[in-house]
């Protein structure tokens, strides 16, 4: 009988581990982070067993720490994600993403006839009306957007 050889994944020296991503959403998360790119090494785990969530995805990115706008976008796709910042192989900070009640500027209204899509000097603004499944409502035109419409905004996979 064969025994499985241990799979070696190179640890990150400096970078970010995004853990507890909703299963099968890792590619969306990469999209938000404009990855893959030439000079960044990324390890992806999809649909792996998790004691907390049953199944989860995770993404490990070498040499990059996330900006807060990026973290807010990830919250829309993966509301339970954990962001671990790694420095010199050690986790130096660990934080949960936070789905805010109000979402400003990071996504556009899906209504082409909304005043926020016309070049007026105003940021988009949405209220979260349901967390799971995610539904947001535009403060201006009052139109609702659901998870799939929001995901489309980050571009095709």
């Amino acid at each position: 009988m064969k025994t499985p050889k241990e799979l070696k994944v190179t640890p990150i020296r400096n970078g970010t581990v995004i853990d507890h991503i909703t299963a099968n959403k890792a590619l969306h998360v990469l999209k938000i982070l404009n990855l893959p790119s030439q000079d960044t090494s990324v390890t992806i785990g999809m649909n792996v067993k998790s004691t907390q969530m049953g199944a989860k995805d995770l993404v490990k990115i070498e040499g990059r720490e996330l900006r807060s706008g990026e973290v807010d976008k990830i919250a829309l796709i993966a509301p339970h994600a954990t962001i671990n910042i790694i420095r010199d192989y050690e986790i130096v900070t660990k934080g949960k993403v936070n789905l805010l009640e109000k979402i400003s500027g990071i996504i556009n209204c899906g209504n082409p006839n909304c005043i926020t899509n016309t070049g007026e000097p105003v940021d988009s603004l949405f209220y979260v009306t349901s967390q799971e499944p995610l539904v947001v409502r535009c403060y201006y035109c009052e139109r609702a957007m659901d998870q799939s419409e929001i995901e489309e905004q980050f571009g095709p996979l």
Partner: protein
Amino acid sequence: MVFSQGDIISIRDFSKDDIKYILRTAEKMEPIARSLEKSDILYGKLLGMLFYEPSTRTRLSFEAAMKRLGGCTIGFSEARTSSATKGEKLSDTVRTVGEYTDALVLRHNMEGTARLAADIVDVPVINAGDGAGQHPTQTLLDLYTMKRLLGKIRNLHVALVGDLKYGRTVHSLAYALAMFGTRMSFVSPPELKMPREIMEDLNGAGVSVHETSAIRDVLPYVDVLYVTRIQKERFPDPQEYLKIKGAYTIDKDLLKNSETIVMHPLPRLDEIATDVDSTPYGKYFQQAFYGVPVRMALLKSLIK
């Protein structure tokens, strides 16, 4: 009783008490609207009317309302005569006219414009229709018409008829009636049913609604038939359109022996036959008049 709104943007912002306050005030305004009494409570006040899209009733009834209360109006009635043609941003125009006036009335073809304007200017902003979005003063005058003609709103049975999918007035009206716990029936071709999102809102408010595609189903028991136009553009097949249109046309014969009133936000094309106009059923012109006292009530409550 107090009125808690500083702007009139969406009926969603209103509490039931706000609505009742406006309906009560409108009733006091009626003799002035009919020129039986005079008023100068808004003497020296100026209302800015920014109509980027044409309108007859809404614009003229606001003007009538302001002038009946002793105030004046300035503004434009189509985008062509504004600096929007030179590419000026809406927010700049609104900010400027907001400085000239004591309140603004805004109609625009894009959704969300009134909300944007209200956040920019210090004076009260009234949404007179933003694209396919909200038209709250229409909803208030619809409610006033029911209250005025039938004496109540809560214990009525109201049928919304026609294009329930795209019609903005029926969306706001359904939302407002739900606040009062009014029984509703939705009568539309299957293609133009009330959107799921609004049905969910109504269910959330604990209102159960009866949906059907036949007017005859509801005629025996409704108090109000609220009729809206079915637009040709919604149907790719012209034959299909003609068939549907025929099934949703209201005439005197259809109404015989019923006890309903017929309302319509106007303009009407042929969804209500002219033979209904002079019957006791047809109340849409009266409804249009009620736009004046309701808008007077709003102006009086907003302009300080």
